[in-house]
């Protein structure tokens, strides 16, 4: 065959498969939203699930997912920032830095179920926190922390060196430069990354099955005392999240409309992640404009 013919065939194959991937995504999203959204209503989003009868909602699960996400971010963001800044600005190339880098890499590639099991062993049983939101948040910390470290490190590395040098020329201390010169410039990237990682945490299930638990107590949304067992704000109560709920009703759901609930919950989950994606872009641009007085990103 002539090279030109081969080239044409190969090119069309590549184009075909690339468009095939686009078709997969469109098909996936279309299927999830088309099948799921018809089942989503305000009632579905707010009411509690039914065990055996039809018509249950995902209210507590949705709340648990969001609350757990907030708890996780409260723990991981400051820790990830600290370690990431260290890796970007303070760590000198050497054995120790190489070792920390290896740790971050290994931690971020651990299967989430292993993280969940570790949480079950150490946090749930050994520290005796039980199946609770706080156990889940700590397990997700293990899961999310390496991501935060990477995001922070990359954000700081991408700050132009002149900014730092200007700070040194003014006689500022290194910590002062980090916090008041570099951090504001790196912040848009960090926020974008954090929201994207929040999307991952929101959809995480395997690590939570053994830490946050697979049940949710009856919640009384008028009770805002964080120590009462029926209060939604109590961090020591078990909490089934939306993702875990989807898994549970698919594997052992007894309600006659389990398939519809799974479809509706999946649509809610995917939509939330989509919103996270869009929000990440939007906030990144907005804050960048506010902080640097320039019109566009990059």
């Amino acid at each position, binding site marked *: 065959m002539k090279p030109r013919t081969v080239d044409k065939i190969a090119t069309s194959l590549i184009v075909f498969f690339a468009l095939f*991937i686009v078709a997969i995504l469109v098909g996936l999203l279309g299927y999830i939203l088309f099948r799921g959204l018809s089942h989503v209503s305000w009632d579905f989003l707010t009411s509690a699930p039914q065990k055996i009868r039809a018509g249950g909602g995902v209210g507590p699960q949705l709340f648990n997912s969001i609350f757990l996400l907030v708890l996780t971010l409260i723990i991981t963001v400051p820790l990830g*920032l*600290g370690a990431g800044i260290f890796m970007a600005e303070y760590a000198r190339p050497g054995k120790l830095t190489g070792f920390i880098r290896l740790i971050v890499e290994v931690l971020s590639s651990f299967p989430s179920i292993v993280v969940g099991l570790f949480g079950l062993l150490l946090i749930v049983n050994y520290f005796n926190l039980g199946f609770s939101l706080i156990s889940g948040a700590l397990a997700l910390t293990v899961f999310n922390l390496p991501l935060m470290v990477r995001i922070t490190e990359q954000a700081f590395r991408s700050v132009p060196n002149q900014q730092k040098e200007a700070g040194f020329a003014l006689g500022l201390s*290194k*910590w002062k430069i980090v916090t008041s010169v570099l951090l504001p410039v790196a912040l848009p990237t960090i926020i974008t990354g954090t929201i994207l990682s929040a999307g*991952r945490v929101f*959809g995480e299930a395997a690590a939570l099955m053994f830490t946050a638990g697979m049940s949710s107590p009856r919640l009384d949304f008028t009770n805002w005392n964080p120590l009462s067992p029926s209060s939604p704000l109590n961090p020591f109560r078990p909490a089934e999240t939306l993702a875990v709920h989807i*898994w549970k009703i*698919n*594997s052992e759901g007894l309600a006659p409309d389990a398939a519809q609930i799974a479809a509706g919950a999946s649509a809610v989950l995917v939509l939330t992640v989509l919103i996270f994606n869009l929000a990440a872009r939007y906030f990144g641009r907005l804050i960048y404009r506010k902080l640097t007085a320039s019109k566009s990103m990059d």
Partner: protein
Amino acid sequence: MRVKPKKARIEKHHIEDFIGRTYMSFCVALLIVIIVSMVYFVASKGISTFISGDVTVSDFLFGTKWSPDGDTPSFGAFPFIAGSFLVTLLAALIASPLSLCAALFMTEIVPGWGKKLLQPVIELLSGIPSVVYGFIGLSVIVPFLRNTLPGQGIGVAAGALVLSVMILPTITSVAADALASLPQNLKESSFALGATRWQTISRVIIPTTFPAIMTGIVLGMARAFGEALAVQMVIGNAPFIPRSLFESASTLTSVITLGMGNTTMGSAHNNALWSMALVLMLMTFVFVFLVRLLERRNKI
């Protein structure tokens, strides 16, 4: 007039620096503590199966009979290890060519709008949670396989298909990065010699970026190997070595997912599950090692 000593101001800087450094050291130390305690706890639980003397390492790794509740319980985890490797390899086989095409499309064929089109697609695909992939596998792929091919629909093929979509974004983004960072003059000299685009891609671009593409594939396989819920939902969870792609099987992760809640801590069955978690953890180390090896080759 006496000049006030500047000591106070310098001290403030020092204190600031000190607090900052202490805080950062704490964060880094925490990372080390997490990984050390993780390895320690999972390993100590995982080897208790072998220490208690009921099961030997070779029985566990190569034994084919899994009946934890039988009269003479046996804990051969080979079917699950085989299942894990089988779905992982199949998923990589399906996803790699597709990902490579996507990466080539973005960087070589239509670098302009190709990237604008595929970049968000890849991001969205990687953002879809794994339980949703499992749900779609259960409600689309499984019925499709059941109606068109022999078998029940659930099984190795369904698991591999679901996993392949899940690892597509990982492989594509690594491969696209590698292709985009390729020096322009390599391509230009190939074109100058009169080579067609496909000749350039197949003889110059892919061989040069091969280690990086392999890195992406290994990362994707690591993700597939550790994925629990999506696979568990569609693979059927039968404790046998599958004889065909359309038979039910189990993976290490699916057995742990199903078994961990139903066994009591410290029982032989439970310990065997921890041993599987240990195998998963060791495999993670192998994957990270492979990635590092490939990255080193990529630098030269």
